[in-house]
């Protein structure tokens, strides 16, 4: 399963797309996995996850067919 990264999250990971293990089955587990692998992400003022282009809560399941993205604090405008 692939994970899209943007903005400062992409810079921390050093990649715009990384693979995530199959043990990750929901948003909370994904965040924990990200914090373990990239401790610098704990410093961000917020870290949202989008599943299929929608902001997703911690309990939302994620699976092989989903488009999953890490959304660091936005700064458009």
């Amino acid at each position, binding site marked *: 399963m692939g994970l899209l990264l943007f903005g*400062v999250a992409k810079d921390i990971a050093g990649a715009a797309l990384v693979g995530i293990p199959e043990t990750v089955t929901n948003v909370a587990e994904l965040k924990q996995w990200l914090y373990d692998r990239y401790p610098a992400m704990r410093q961000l003022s917020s870290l949202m996850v989008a599943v299929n*282009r929608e902001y997703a809560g911690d309990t939302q399941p994620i699976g092989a067919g989903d488009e999953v*993205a890490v959304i660091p604090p*936005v700064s*458009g*405008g």
Partner: protein
Amino acid sequence: METLIAIRDTITVQEALDFIQSPECGGEVIFTGTVRNDTRGRGVTKLFYECYEAMALSEMQKIADQVQARWDIKKLAMLHAIGDKYPGDIAVVIAVASAHRGIAFDACEFTIDTLKETVPIWKKEFFTDGGIGQ
């Protein structure tokens, strides 16, 4: 409500004005966000904007849906630029046309405030001192 939503390398105020002009509307409110040459006293050489385009367009459409639900607005244009932008360049344009000016101000301010909170667009700042911020 008619809506124009776009994310592009270059946007202009004129295209937003052209879209919202209508002899049925009496009041148009336009917000433009331009690149400043300074952020908290630090000189800026350029900004770089990137976006998660599919989701950004979807979130912009959600804002338009909220505007339509809350106010009697006839036309709404919401344009955001991406890529390298230099001081004086336009980064965002919100244009609203309505028969009544009070709600046009409210809807325009709501749109830019919400865009800045929810739409997945990110800017990186390049400073004259060589630093980079985001």
